[in-house]
């Protein structure tokens, strides 16, 4: 009888470890199979038939129903230019140029992978809106402010109520070179403009 209880206890401990390690893998394993380009993390593995079980589980968790690389490249960033987490209270500037794709967008997501709830209706910037305000002298360069207040920004993504957030850039119908070599993509640069000392 005692041996039975002991066995049951060991199995419970083992099962617990199995669940904890799997969940940790799904939460922290976002770096596996991934390539970083200036703080933006892209994946060469995406949810197609060739994916291994870990990649498939990771893609399912953070990008269920995402498109494969032939159709779209996704790059995600959760840190600023110095490696610190992106924070709702800070003001950042994204400085970008033409992207090697038919259409692109940058979108903010809160830590729960959904859009932050703040009533600002400013969750993204995209190629069409940037083109509308482009001037010839910009030569395709564009600037987007990511901050809790719009201020005098032309293109603005509201970080209000987003906690420690993530930015995702989508490149729809990426050009061949971009798909083959992430390093060839000039993704937008991020700059911290200001940041209150106490975490909000």
């Amino acid at each position: 009888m005692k041996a039975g209880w002991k066995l049951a206890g060991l199995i419970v401990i083992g099962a617990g470890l199995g669940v904890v390690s799997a969940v940790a893998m799904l939460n922290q394993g976002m770096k596996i199979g991934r390539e970083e380009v200036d703080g933006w993390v892209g994946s060469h593995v995406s949810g197609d038939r060739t994916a291994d079980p870990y990649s498939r589980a990771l893609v399912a968790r953070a990008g269920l129903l995402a498109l494969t690389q032939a159709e779209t490249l996704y790059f995600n960033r959760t840190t600023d230019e110095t490696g610190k987490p992106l924070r709702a209270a800070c003001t950042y500037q994204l400085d970008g140029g033409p992207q090697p794709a038919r259409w692109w967008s940058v979108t903010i997501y809160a830590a729960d992978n959904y859009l932050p709830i703040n009533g600002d209706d400013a969750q993204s910037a995209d190629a069409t809106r940037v083109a509308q305000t482009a001037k010839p002298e910009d030569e395709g360069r564009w600037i987007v402010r990511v901050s809790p207040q719009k201020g005098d920004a032309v293109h603005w993504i509201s970080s209000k109520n987003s906690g420690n957030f993530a930015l995702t850039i989508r490149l729809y119908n990426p050009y061949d070179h971009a798909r083959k070599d992430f390093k060839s993509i000039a993704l937008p640069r991020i700059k911290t403009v200001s940041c209150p000392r106490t975490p909000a």
Partner: protein
Amino acid sequence: MNALSKSLLIVLVTAVVVHLAVILSTPNLLMAVAFKRLSADGQKVNEMVHSPRTSETSRTIVRLSPDLAYSSCAFDLSKGPVRVTAAKASDYMSVSVYAANSDNIFAVNDHQAPNGVDLVIVGKGQAAPSGAALVVQSPTQRGIVLERRLAPSAETFAAADLARKRDVCAPL
């Protein structure tokens, strides 16, 4: 083998088995949840559902783009193949098919299908209907079709919403 190493072995083997079970079942579980949500708890299966413009309160799927108009169809091939159509678009549009294990088994965009999309999804062992131009073989009976149309503004969303009105997802 002493008692301690035997105990450790039991813990280790259980941990590995459970770990793999969780990893392997995660995509299917998450797809089952998505299937349930997109089909309104199973009431709208094999039916094209047009989502309203993505807003901060959208919670059906993680990481939706607010710049795209999404339509979806939770399909079930148990009673036979399902036909999916999507009207042609003046800007980016794509139709993609996902199996129950979350694999993106097929995708086509407006450049590849300038006159719109018309495809038939068939299950394992089901014969492809004669005359179908585009046949997608699904390894699983259930799955999800997702249609994306570029719609970064209220005006472009209204146009996409009009274009997609007659898009079909229905048993053959």
